[in-house]
């Protein structure tokens, strides 16, 4: 049996297999990401949803080659366009980060330099990585700012980050992310700091970039609504592991893992919902994980001795639908 949820289409852009990432701490090794496997096809939007500590951000950092500093990739494989990235020298990683994988973070203010105009900052990226001339880079920067919906882009290119609103700053970040024409954008909670009307605009923008330019997107969020609006495929993470992986509709409408289903039932809806069924307890401490299924102590179905004693593998319960549970919930009608 294979334990790798994959889309059986063209060659994936990014293919991650059995990735484990550990962080040494005083209390012992914390495995923030535990045997995570997934793939992202060109132009596909893949969502990672989970609560704090579920491992979604560390997974993204690993894909960018950015965990080496504090933690360590213990095992696994990260292939980008078929090429193994783990073990490559830092310079190679940097080249991939510069040209192929762009990132958009939650807080653009910390990612932008406050003392340079945004036009200058985007031009710098273009001149460094694409070796464009000064004038050419400037023109392209204005073009990019216009493309992400910044009105009056030519004039605003001369403005500094603090002169933009939160939503406009996130657009600047996206313009910068697009500057080297990446094939994958990693967006980590890109709209969490924004008001809801602005969030909707930024999500539209990212979605349209994917549709129009064929950029693949790895979007990370705690918000199942964001997943629903964005993702083609969703990976649900819990305590460092992927617990369910399927198309967005399957995960959100017909979840088959007890955690996914319980999470959806605990969510208040703007359409109204009479009863909120809370999930008891809190996610486990990664230092002292339950011996068996990591969701067992909170599982509304509670299961049996098997659930208590051994951690289930991911298994394919339906074509392209993977669940890490001994229980396979019947799909809801």
């Amino acid at each position, binding site marked *: 049996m294979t334990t790798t949820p994959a889309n059986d289409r063209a060659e994936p852009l990014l293919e991650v297999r059995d990735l484990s990432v550990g962080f040494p701490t005083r209390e012992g090794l914390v495995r923030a990401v535990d045997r995570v496997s997934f793939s992202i096809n060109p132009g596909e939007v893949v969502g990672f949803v989970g609560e704090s500590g579920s491992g979604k951000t560390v997974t993204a950092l690993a894909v960018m080659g950015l965990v080496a500093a504090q933690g360590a990739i213990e095992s696994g494989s990260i292939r980008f366009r078929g090429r193994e990235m783990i073990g490559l020298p830092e310079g190679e990683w940097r080249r991939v980060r510069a040209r192929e994988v762009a990132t958009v973070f939650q807080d653009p203010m910390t990612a932008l330099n406050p003392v340079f105009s945004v036009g200058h900052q985007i031009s710098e990226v273009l001149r460094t990585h694409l070796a464009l001339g000064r004038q050419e880079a400037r023109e392209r920067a204005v073009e990019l700012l216009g493309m992400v919906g910044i009105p009056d882009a030519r004039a605003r290119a001369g403005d500094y980050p603090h002169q933009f609103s939160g939503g406009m700053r996130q657009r600047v970040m996206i313009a910068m992310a697009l500057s080297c024409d990446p094939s994958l954008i990693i967006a980590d909670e890109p709209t969490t700091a924004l008001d809801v009307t602005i969030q909707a605009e930024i999500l539209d923008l990212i979605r349209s970039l994917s549709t129009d330019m064929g950029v693949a997107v790895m979007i990370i969020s*705690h918000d199942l609504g964001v997943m629903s609006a964005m*993702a083609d495929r969703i990976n649900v993470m819990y305590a460092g592991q992927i617990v369910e992986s399927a198309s967005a509709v399957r995960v959100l409408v017909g979840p088959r893992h007890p955690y996914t289903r319980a999470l959806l039932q605990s969510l208040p809806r703007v359409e109204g919902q009479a009863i909120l069924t809370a999930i008891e307890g809190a996610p486990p401490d990664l230092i002292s994980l339950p011996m068996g299924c990591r969701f067992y102590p909170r599982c509304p179905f509670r299961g049996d001795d098997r659930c208590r004693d051994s951690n289930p593998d991911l298994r394919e319960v339906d074509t392209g639908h993977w669940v890490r549970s001994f229980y396979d919930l019947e799909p809801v009608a």
Partner: protein
Amino acid sequence: MTALLDVRELAVHYPVRARGLTRRRTGAVRAVDGVSFTVERGRTLGLVGESGGGKSTTGRAILMLQRPTAGSVLFEGVDLAGVAEGELRNLRRRMQLVFQDPYASLDPRMTVGRLVGEALDIHGLAVGRSRAGRVAGLLELVGLDPKHAGRYPHEFSGGQRQRIGIARALAVEPIFLVCDEPVSALDVSIQAQVMNLLADLRDRLGLSYVFISHDLAVVRHISDRVAVMYLGKIVEMADRDDLYDQPLHPYTKALLSSVPSPDPNVQRARERVMLRGELPSPADPPPGCRFHTRCPHAQELCRVVEPPLVSASAGHVVACHFWRELRSTPVEVTRARTSRRTS
């Protein structure tokens, strides 16, 4: 019976001063600008809207943590705006605040027992054995193990810390709570626990809430009545289902249509009301209707005359010149991008 809380024409203006020696007053940020509402006993009023709307300032002004510039706050018939600081302490026993961030509002060096007992001491409510009993009772009330009274805040999870915050607020036996984004810092699976606890306490203890949140789904769930704020004003207020099922103000419609639904079928069918431009500065709100710079339906009248809050139906008020027209004619909307998802 009169309302428990009756807020009339409440205003909070912050002075804006020039730089330099004179610090001359050059203007004012009108964070809250003429807000009126009532809260009945045992009921919850939700305040919703985006940042800069004045929700939190309204909450703090109700409790006189921020003195209002104008208007009155009648609590059980007493105008708090006219009460001297010294006498407020007694009144504050009746009204408490639950904060967003349970991490920041708990002293890390105090045990939970002391944190919860502190309020009892300040108000001289219980000493000795009865104090210990009260603390244990409060912890139990909010779903914490009384045996953990000797632990420190860092030993608890985020959701448990918010329970400690609620126990502290309830220690003085208030009848009214302002809850300011009480579940916004919590993980999704914990949010429902705390919301259910707040609803349960309200029903068991007969509490009344002003519940402030930017999260429209959370507000719908907990509130009986909801007010939508934009740049310091209430633009629409109605009973919960009325407001969410029949929104009249273009801003309310835009907000509701912007929340992405976890149900992909609902999400795909949703028609988005797109807003133009950006949120203006509350220091310099637009003339006329404050929303006109972003409203998809703004007319000349909106740029000049500020629309009063008028009654559209029983209990449903709206501040828009054109609410009737917008209700009868189909709203001009931009269909949100259709997704290419396959199942």
